[in-house]
């Protein structure tokens, strides 16, 4: 029962949703709006409650056992409570906006800006002409990097157009190929889940 009920639900609802997509009747759309979109929002709130519990337990455990970096857990819990209360009590008022604009936004931007440094070190380490494929990757990357900035047009006027050609033809061909493969893989995985062939997501044994 513990295994069969979820499998049966996945099977029935999976095929119901496949048919729902092809039925434009308002009843079908209403079914989708209420039972899928709205129920999803409602159910996800319960998952959030369980996950907040997991979050708090993880950090309080770290604090209690004085694991390395336990002070960061205090910051995490205090920040979590502060922002939650600021949002609930002030209803996106002044304090919440200030914290968003002057703490959250700069922190996000800072983390993203680390990518500039990491790209440099990763490129230095990885772009080696070890074999033919690596050499082609290296040459294409160099051309695109030059062509996508102002300097490229100084070196050769036609370089930006050549880079657009690379992006519009070889790049697009590869992207399309990968997308088709990924699309088929998604369909296959979805059908396997609906048919009960793939069961790992249930968490239990076979």
């Amino acid at each position, binding site marked *: 029962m513990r295994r069969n009920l979820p499998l049966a639900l996945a099977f029935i609802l999976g095929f119901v949703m496949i048919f729902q997509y092809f039925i434009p009747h308002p009843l079908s759309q209403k079914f989708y709006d209420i039972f899928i979109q709205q129920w999803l929002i409602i159910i996800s709130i319960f998952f959030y409650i369980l996950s907040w519990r997991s979050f708090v337990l993880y950090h309080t455990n770290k604090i209690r056992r004085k694991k390395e970096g336990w002070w960061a857990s205090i910051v995490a819990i205090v920040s979590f409570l502060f922002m939650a209360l600021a949002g609930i009590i002030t209803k996106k008022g002044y304090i919440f906006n200030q914290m968003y604009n002057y703490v959250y*936004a700069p922190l996000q931007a800072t983390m993203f800006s680390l990518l500039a*440094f990491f790209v440099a070190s990763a490129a*230095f380490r990885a772009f*080696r002409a070890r074999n033919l494929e690596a050499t082609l990757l290296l040459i294409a990357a160099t051309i695109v990097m030059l062509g996508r*900035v102002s*300097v490229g047009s100084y070196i050769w006027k036609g370089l930006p157009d050549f880079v657009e050609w690379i992006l519009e033809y070889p790049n*697009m061909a590869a992207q*399309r190929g990968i997308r088709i493969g990924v699309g088929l893989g998604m369909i296959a995985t979805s059908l396997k889940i609906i048919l009960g062939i793939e069961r790992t997501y249930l968490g239990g044994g076979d």
Partner: protein
Amino acid sequence: MRFFEKILKIDRRWIFLIVGIVVIIPLIFPIGMPVLTTPPVRSLYNYVDKLQGTGKAVMLVTDFDPSTMPELLPMACAILRHCFAKKIPVYLYGGLYSAYVGMAEMALEKTLPDFPDLQYGKDYIFLGYVPGVSLVILGMGGSISGTFNTDYYGNKLDTLPLNKMVDNYKNIGIVIDLSGSASPETWVIYGYQRFGVRIGVGTTAVSAAQYYPMLQTGQFVGMLGGLKGAAEYEQLIKKAGIPTGRLEATIGMDAQSFVHIFLIFIIILGNIAFLITKKRKV
């Protein structure tokens, strides 16, 4: 020989330091390198430009958070300036997720001072956030006031002159989605495929490559890719005599140019060192 071996084993922190210097100097001392316009950007610019006088509005969606702000906020500002200068009505939509509304507010704060004659409710409306993602896109196909009810400031949309004229995709000339994630595809699926509203996209440089197939099939009218895309749009509005503000993307392109040159230099140096040490071992 030992020099090349040292190069291969260089502590990455030296690379970080040089990247930091190479980025900071052009930002402090801008050079002003020219930015050439590419077809995807020109295509989007021309489409927006042609909406002048048609009565159709532009919906600008800020589907990005502070992490991608350096690339996408200049795009938002440039497009807003273009629309405001040409008196093209604008719906500024704060994005499919709640974290993105602040970005729309920032874009308005940066652009409004240069257009003091604009009237809120007539020339532009700022929609806030409503949960639902695809439901919101679908809902706006029927009625924007039905989906949002009020704007970001709490005004009833029914009372605003612009919304009385527009109110759904029929009178929206283009939806321009600025995003660092996969939301442009969501707009194509639920907006373009379902209602036929044209979609333009502004995205990070990393994501731009994957949207070329959709650009080629016409699902996107045009595309701004990364900081360069933003810089190109800034240059186009500058050429049209529109107030541009600080040209943040164009200034940033100087730094990006030098970083790219440095990257190419260290890649070539690394390869030389690699080949020489490899030969030695053989």
